[in-house]
């Protein structure tokens, strides 16, 4: 069992295993620590933090869809100051790797957040969210504009030596073009994918079920799309990919690694099974044993087309 090397490398970042908890789906780690042993998790990506606190969108923020869910949380978060003061100390205690996800409405804000957090030893890497579909400014406007994504990568890169991961929007025709720009501007990795834009209406009131009108679609429904995006990047751009989208169990995780992911994140499944991370890691180990794989990193992009 213990012979299998589960560690993976993303730029200069080494993770004990490829499983990360996705941004926005585990808050700042404290609640979920009631259910799961965070010290066994490869990395925790914190809820997107912005310079100032954000109240987030009014309710209703969530609706279930077939094999998926829509959310429009609107980047509700405590803001950078509070994050540093109260959230980092808890996360420091947990023997996991902390990746800080940053959201912003301007390039300057991304840079300022990164700069401020760069000094925090507990933060081991940055995931830059250029793809939140649920806020008016920033978010998608950046995420779907290749020039902005390039600029954000370049400017953030300039203020930190820690690994910079750019979280890409799937709501574009050619996601690999965006991955290429990230690579060219010095980004260390890309995360793919954030949620797809979707909506759902009440047919009696004729109003959107989600107050924000549209929300981001996550969960098993989007897995085939996410896999295709990861594969597209993998075939076209030489950059580490963190696969995300609809992973419910270890089989899904293996599928993401095969199509090109170096590591992967689980999101929605945490809401349903808050111990899913540990179960997936165990499943990966058994799979590697069964398949005679001694280093899990061999799986990455091992597709036979």
């Amino acid at each position, binding site marked *: 069992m213990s012979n299998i090397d589960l560690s993976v490398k993303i730029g200069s970042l080494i993770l004990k295993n490829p499983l990360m908890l996705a941004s926005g789906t585990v808050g700042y780690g404290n609640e979920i620590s009631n*259910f799961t042993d965070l010290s066994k998790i490869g990395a925790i990506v914190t*809820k997107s933090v912005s310079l100032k606190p954000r*109240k*987030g969108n009014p309710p209703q923020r969530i609706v*279930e869809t077939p*094999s998926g869910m829509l959310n429009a949380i609107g980047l*509700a978060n405590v803001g950078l100051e509070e994050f540093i003061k109260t959230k980092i100390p808890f996360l420091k205690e947990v023997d996991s790797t902390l990746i800080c996800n940053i959201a912003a409405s301007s390039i300057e804000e991304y840079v300022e957040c990164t700069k401020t957090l760069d000094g925090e030893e507990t933060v081991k890497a940055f995931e830059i969210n250029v793809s939140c579909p649920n806020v008016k400014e920033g978010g998608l406007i950046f995420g779907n504009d290749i020039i902005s994504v390039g600029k954000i990568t370049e400017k953030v890169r300039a203020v930190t030596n820690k690994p910079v991961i750019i979280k890409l929007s799937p709501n574009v025709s050619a996601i690999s073009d965006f991955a290429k720009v990230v690579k060219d501007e010095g980004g260390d990795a890309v995360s793919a994918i954030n949620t797809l834009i979707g909506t759902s209406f009440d047919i009696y009131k004729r109003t959107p079920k989600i107050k924000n009108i549209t929300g981001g679609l996550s969960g*098993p429904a989007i897995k085939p799309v996410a896999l295709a995006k990861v594969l597209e990047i993998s075939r076209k751009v030489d950059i580490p990919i963190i696969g995300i989208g609809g992973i419910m169990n270890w089989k899904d995780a293996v599928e993401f690694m095969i199509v090109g992911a170096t590591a992967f994140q689980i999101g*929605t499944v945490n*809401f349903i099974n808050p111990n899913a991370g540990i179960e997936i890691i165990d499943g990966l180990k058994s799979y590697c044993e069964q398949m005679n794989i001694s280093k899990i990193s061999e799986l990455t992009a091992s597709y036979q087309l």
Partner: protein
Amino acid sequence: MFTSKVPVESVEKIQENIFILKAFSPQIASAIKPGQFCNLKVSETDFPLLRRPFSISDVDGDYISFMFNKHGEGTRILSEKRNGDVIDILAPLGNGFTYEDDYDTAVMIGGGLGAAPFPFLTRRLKNKKIVTLIGGRNEKDVTDWGLKNVFYSTDDGSIGFKGNVVELLISKFNDFKDSEIKIFSCGPTPMLKALQKFTVDNNIKCEISTECSMACGFGICQGCPIDSAEKDKYYLVCKDGPVFDAEAIVL
């Protein structure tokens, strides 16, 4: 908070469309308090995707009960469970009622299935008088399962007082003049809103159990905000509630 695989003891239909699901769980039974809730995985597959939140309706020894209406996919599946089926339950969630403080009479007010948390509260209340007011559209909407000293109101007058349950409360208000009361309430938002106004205006202790769409049920998704009385701040129904002081929230 923990997840637990719980065997179903029975599902009973106690009304046209009201079901009681009883399950065996010493662990939940000993941990949960009136007004708290559980988040149920209704199937063993990934469909439906999300858990379904339900108040704990009663705890009897090692058995826990849920009361629900069948209206969507999840409640349909629950209504078809049989003895021995296993349900994955996340519990205990949220903050329950504060029922041990200083007052004489507990007035429980439920709109329709808003009655769900009260059998358990009734069971746990010691040394308080209890009055229970249950409102519904008609006779088939209401139940006195596990309740004490029940008065009904129905929109069509098919049983009890004709009108809504807040009107019923007001009509009975004289009865409570001499004792200090505390109201525990649960039901549809319009009812809670009317009740909130009445209790705040009249300076009556009142706790409201709220509902909203949820994904996780324990504070990690931020999916369940409710406006707080404080400016520019949401509470989370699952973590800060579902029971709130009437004065603390904006409905």
